[in-house]
């Protein structure tokens, strides 16, 4: 077995908004080729972890390593250049730009083969191809989510961060997103995603972390956590 290459490590992260600290020492790591999920109750700080990685909030303590380099307190736009692609939970498309322009913007940091990528995306999401000239603001909630995903895939990312990519999607698309996630991952991109469709998420994940109130509560492989009775009851909505 070859040694596992770590893509990103978050170590002892303390961070929050202004005065209030939300994360109290979080540890997360993503290795090459992995899909890693973060799950947990609402308000646990899952989105906050992603925001911290992207330098969008103040980090009080701890380190974040991307490919061996510390990226704490580097401006957001540079972090993106370093190969992180991110899809926020809400407000994740440019509403007055057309679908196509949204995707072009996704390719901002590396615009070289935009046309090829565009074609790929329209194949991946045929619905978007039909609406390519329509402003993203007039799409339905689910359609927007697809635009947001596609937009983040326009560059060859070293790691993809997804904040609830399937929220609001129909079962069909949800499954498709999960299989897309697998596909993307299969092409060699490690993925860190926050999900509330916990069972399905765990199903596709290599490993997962469960956060509660800003602390790491459990972690393990997807299957381990799925089988754990307590985890299932507390976080996966299983009825006993």
């Amino acid at each position, binding site marked *: 077995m070859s040694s596992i290459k770590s893509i990103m490590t978050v170590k002892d992260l303390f961070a929050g908004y202004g005065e209030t600290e939300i994360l109290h020492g979080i540890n997360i790591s993503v290795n090459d080729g992995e899909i890693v999920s973060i799950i947990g109750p609402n308000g646990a700080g899952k989105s906050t972890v992603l925001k911290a990685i*992207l330098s969008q909030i103040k980090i009080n303590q701890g380190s974040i390593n991307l490919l061996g380099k510390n990226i704490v307190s580097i401006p957001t736009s540079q972090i993106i250049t370093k190969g992180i692609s991110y899809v926020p939970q809400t407000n994740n498309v*440019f509403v007055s730009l057309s679908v196509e322009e949204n995707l072009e*913007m996704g390719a901002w940091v590396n615009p070289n083969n935009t046309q090829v990528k565009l074609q790929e995306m329209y194949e991946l999401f045929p619905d978007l191809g039909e609406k390519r000239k329509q402003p993203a603001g007039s799409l339905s909630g689910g359609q927007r989510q697809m635009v947001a995903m596609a937009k983040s895939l326009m560059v060859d990312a070293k790691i993809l961060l997804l904040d609830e990519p399937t929220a609001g999607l129909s079962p069909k698309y949800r499954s498709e997103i999960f299989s897309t996630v697998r596909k993307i991952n299969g092409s060699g991109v490690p993925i860190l995603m926050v999900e509330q469709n916990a069972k399905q998420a765990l199903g596709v994940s290599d490993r997962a972390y469960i956060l509660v109130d800003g602390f790491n509560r459990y972690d393990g492989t997807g299957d381990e956590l799925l089988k754990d009775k307590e985890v299932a009851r507390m976080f996966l909505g299983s009825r006993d």
Partner: protein
Amino acid sequence: MWENFGFEFVNYYFIPGLVLGCIYALGAIGITLTFGILRFANFAHGEIMMTGAFLTWTFLEISNIFLGFYMHPLIACTPAIFIAIFLALSVDRYFYKPFRDSPTIIIVMASFGMMLIIRSLVQVIWGPNQITFVKGIAKPNSYLKDFSSSMDMMLLVPSKHLFIILGTIIIMLAFNYMLTSTRIGKAMRAVSDSPDLAKVTGIDVEQVIRATWIVGGFCAVMAGVFMAMDTQFIMSTMGFRMLLPMFAAAILGGIGRPFGAVLGGLVIGFAEELSAYPWFGNGPLLSPGYKSGVAFSILVLMLVFRPSGILKGRVF
């Protein structure tokens, strides 16, 4: 051919309206951009315009001292543009940037403060008095006059007006191309939609904002110089006088729409000039005392019945 009515109308009402509209339109571009991208009504915009005109005048005088003749204002304005852009960028850096994440009203107030500061500085440096920009009166362009009279018409257009109209058209086309077809232009629109999202998409928002000020500053100086060429004098209050009609033009056209701004500028320019036209009987349609009310009435009606502007722009 044309009866007398036509010439009079074209020469005294249509062309002046067009010229005024062009100036408004150029000023409105900067306003529409800051409104769209930085999301605030920039009250200091008129002052950038005014400062540009004063700087241009200074360079005209300098050229007279060192070269012995007055350059054409459109040449003298080149260094003025650089200085004005520098001014706009530093104002942004020190006075607006700290408020990027604050509510709009704060930055609107800051721009109001900047308006006072810039204007007072100009008044302290250059004095509050009128300064002659170009002497004398502008005679109609003789080539155009001969040409049109041989066609049995009579066009009385001074060359300065031709410069203004052509200049505006060129700037507009360039600007529209930039916004819809260049990378930075699209990024401007993206930032205008959502700065946060732009940031996490990897767009350097600050760079886009700087580009905005550069374009806005350029248009403002051009508007200022055109205006100075037209009125032939400059004055420290000229920016503020133009500000409200320019706002009106920007909104009328649809915020974030450069062609809208042109259209808005033209509508306001025409309306102001044509309100004095004796449409019925001999007297002006509306007492010229109400002239500045015309722009506002149109604006208010427009806002009420079609808030997105002539070309659908962004509605907040």
